[in-house]
């Protein structure tokens, strides 16, 4: 019996005009967007590879230890094609310095590879945002007359005159229509995936495929949520027209109004400027303290010069290429100067980082957590959050890169301490031979790619979405059961 009902639902839906439109709209939009995004990704990857090569050469061409200040690059994430999240908006090239600890929240880094300052004027849309808008609308359009329509036509009575339980009917309707809704989704999703795999730049690993599977699963649950909302409204309303109008207003509110209004509110009511300014003042004081301590030491490169010879450099980096013989005696003094100064510089950066970290966690981190919580109140927000976690373009995913740059900074410093580099001649001079970087550890960044990790971040939201489905289904069921036909 159940199967007959489902078959009936599928057949009546498949031949409708709306199903035809759904397939056409979904496939054409997703494909055209995928085409553009793939091209964009290829461009970003090429730019990343070029930067990687140029920077690698430059990083290890430093002739003295103090000149070592590597430029680190963040690879673009291919899953940003699905949900771009922060991937394009966070810095992707960081100059590592001894006197500053890098962080996602700094705004003085470059975002290389995007060469138009007006780029933000072009809306950049991804596959998830198309599904978010289009599929939710389609789900409601398929649902509004599911019960109200049959009631209006009188067919509902007819069906229930047979030995069919009401619960069974609702369940059959749900399954049948969901199959029809999943069809355009699957077709466009698979075509998009196929198109992406055509590109030589995109090589998904098994873990990536599993994460893409996670995104697909979330999309299905999302569609189901909206279908159930529509079904519930259809169940309550007596006329299809009322059902349709109510569904549409609820759709506008859930998809457009709620996410935007809540983000707008969060942006306005969480104060950031003042706290950041205060932190900046504190950091400036710390830097000043360092400068005072530095002032107490005798800088060998300030007039009158301790060394006679030739050198290049700036305040933090020196490369002496030639020393006259009578200056050789002063070398131990210069060594001692750097041996006391550099650890102090590093400590200063550390102290400043503690202050900045605190300020960031009270402002930007707090803001992002509040915004996340606000977004959780609508299925659209939940869908966005879950897919971003699966794609690895959420805050944790991107911050991972900055964490590894910080780790690498620590590695470099440890390397310097181990080598006693600060007190060595090669810290500031290359006249007796340049530094060999053979045993300096290289920076390698492995994006968080394993499913378990992404899954654990997505889990909460996905569960919430499932729970919402369950509640909606039970509500529909109960109301429909107690209704007069």
């Amino acid at each position, binding site marked *: 019996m159940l199967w007959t009902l489902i078959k009936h639902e599928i057949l009546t839906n498949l031949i409708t005009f709306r199903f035809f439109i759904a397939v056409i709209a979904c496939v054409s939009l997703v494909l055209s967007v995928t085409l553009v995004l793939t091209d964009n990704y290829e461009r970003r990857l090429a730019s990343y590879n070029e930067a990687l090569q140029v920077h690698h050469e430059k990083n290890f061409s430093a002739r003295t230890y103090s000149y070592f200040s590597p430029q680190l690059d963040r690879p673009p994430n291919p899953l940003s094609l699905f949900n771009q999240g922060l991937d394009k908006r966070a810095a992707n090239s960081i100059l590592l310095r001894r006197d500053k600890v890098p962080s996602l929240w700094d705004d003085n880094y470059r*975002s290389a590879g995007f060469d*138009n300052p007006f*780029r933000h*004027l*072009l*809306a950049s849309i991804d596959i998830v945002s198309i599904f978010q808008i289009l599929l939710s609308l389609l789900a409601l359009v398929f649902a509004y007359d599911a019960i109200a329509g049959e009631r209006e036509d009188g067919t509902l009575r007819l069906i229930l005159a047979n030995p069919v339980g009401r619960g069974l009917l609702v369940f059959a309707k749900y399954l049948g229509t969901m199959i029809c809704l999943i069809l355009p989704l699957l077709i466009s999703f698979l075509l998009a995936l196929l198109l992406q795999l055509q590109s030589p730049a995109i090589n998904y690993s098994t873990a990536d495929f599993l994460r893409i599977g996670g995104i697909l699963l979330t999309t299905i649950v999302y569609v189901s949520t909206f279908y159930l909302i529509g079904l519930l409204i259809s169940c309550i309303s007596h006329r299809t*027209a009322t059902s349709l109008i109510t569904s549409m207003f609820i759709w506008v509110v859930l998809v457009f109004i709620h996410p935007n209004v809540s983000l707008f509110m969060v942006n306005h009511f969480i104060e*950031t400027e003042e706290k950041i300014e205060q932190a900046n003042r504190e950091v400036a004081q710390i830097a000043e303290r360092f400068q005072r301590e530095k002032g107490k030491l005798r800088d060998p490169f300030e007039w009158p010069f301790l060394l006679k010879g030739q050198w290049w450099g700036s305040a933090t980096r020196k490369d002496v290429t030639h020393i006259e013989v009578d200056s050789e005696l002063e070398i131990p003094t210069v060594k001692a100067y750097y041996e006391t100064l550099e650890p102090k510089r590093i400590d200063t950066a550390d102290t400043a980082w503690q202050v900045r970290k605190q300020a960031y966690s009270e402002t930007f981190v707090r803001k992002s957590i509040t915004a996340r919580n606000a977004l959780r109140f609508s299925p659209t927000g939940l869908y966005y959050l879950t897919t971003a976690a699966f794609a690895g373009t959420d805050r944790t995913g991107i911050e991972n890169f900055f964490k590894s740059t910080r780790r690498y900074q620590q590695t470099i410093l440890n390397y310097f301490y181990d080598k006693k580099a600060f007190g060595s001649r090669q810290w500031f001079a290359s006249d007796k031979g340049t530094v060999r970087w053979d045993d300096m550890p290289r920076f390698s960044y492995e994006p968080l790619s394993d499913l378990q990790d992404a899954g654990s971040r997505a889990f909460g939201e996905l569960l919430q979405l499932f729970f919402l489905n369950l509640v909606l289904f039970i509500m529909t069921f109960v109301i429909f059961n107690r209704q007069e036909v």
Partner: protein
Amino acid sequence: MFWYIIQRELFEQLSSLRFVLATLLIVFLMVVNAIGHIEEYKTQQTEYRRQVSASSERLQGNSNNLYTLVVRGPGGLNKHPSKLAFCAHGSENHLPTSVLGWSAGWGRDSNIEDSIYKISGLWRLMYNVSPPITARNIFPTFLKIDWTLIISIVLSFAALVFAFDAISGELGHGTLRLTLSNSIARGTLLAGKFLSILISLGVAFLTGVLINLLLLHLSGTLQLDGQEWSRVGGIFVVGLTYLSIFIVLGLFVSSRVNRSTTSLVILLLLWVIWVILIPATLGTILSGLNQPPTIRDYSAKHSAQHKEITERYEARGLYNKAPTRLRPPTPATLLWAKYLNEERQASNRLTKEHLNAQINQIQIAREFNRISPTAIAQYAIESLAGTGFQRHLDFLKKAERYADVFNDFLITADRADPDSPHVPFVREGMSDKPVPFDSIPKFQDRVRLGNAFKGAMLDVMLLVLFFVVLFAMAHVSFQRKEI
């Protein structure tokens, strides 16, 4: 008769559930907009004032010597934030807020006749070349709550919901036959229906607008002069024109279809594609075909050009003799002046070319987005509100004009000094006296009413065209309909 139809329709609309829902939604969003704007307006104004006074201080510091101004330029030229940003935010937070009139960034110590001659490039305009990093806002609001959003999404949506059953609904109930059995022309009926929907939604919109303006007024952030009020009026009219397009679209589809629910389903799909998806995808897709050269290419080209010019002048004996203060000017002084001027001109040309390529990419996207009336309305409203891309281009033009004015001033100020050899712009050829700070022309940025209306003109005409075509279609299709 006509009035009677409108009256009847109006009464029906105003007492419906959808009117209440639409009004509530609009009013709610208008209140949110006002609350947000009050905060933002204050920070924007303080930031602007801080920047202007910083630039002015810097300029004053540089005015102790005319040549310092020649090398360092006027400093930051700041864009005046629009007071009407609550109508259209125009992605202003993603656009640069200033153009820099800054030192050239190159200088050289050359050994000429056994002494060091220090020279640095002349000041020039510099534009932001790479997009800002926006990671501090973790979640992008792809729509910001402003009048544009309310008009382009909520009003257009409400228009469809109001119009979808205007004809097919009455057809279904059989009331359409009844009405037309009276001596009423079909055209009159259509016009009556159109006007009644326009009026009822206009009332909802006006309520929201008035509440919004009232809140802003009470908070003291709304201090508009006559021309700004007329721009607000212009925005309201653009909103109504845009609204009319969607009403006639609704009437058109409603007269083609026999069931009202089918009509709404078609309209909704059209709406999603036309209002949401086309503006977000089409321009982006097509502008991808026209990528501007990368920053790396640009800077490589720039330094190659600099090298080429320097070498050319070196061959003509640039480094044989340093310029002097002698009068009449020596050939060396003239050569150095020519070199510096040519170098700046060539550099400016290249920078401008690069900027134009970047602008061009956006312009192409905007042209294609105009297939959707939503994009057209957005551009028109932004032009009128004095925000967004068109306004930014106006600002850039103004900054360029100001650069010429500033250079002319430097020449005039040099002429006024009798001790100078008058060879701009080499140090020895120019006056080295202080310049009275008050005589330096200052950069002043304002949105002009004429510019705003001129910028919106084309877009408004396009909107009217859309309306006329759709109205004609609705009319014809209603005339030929069998009832």
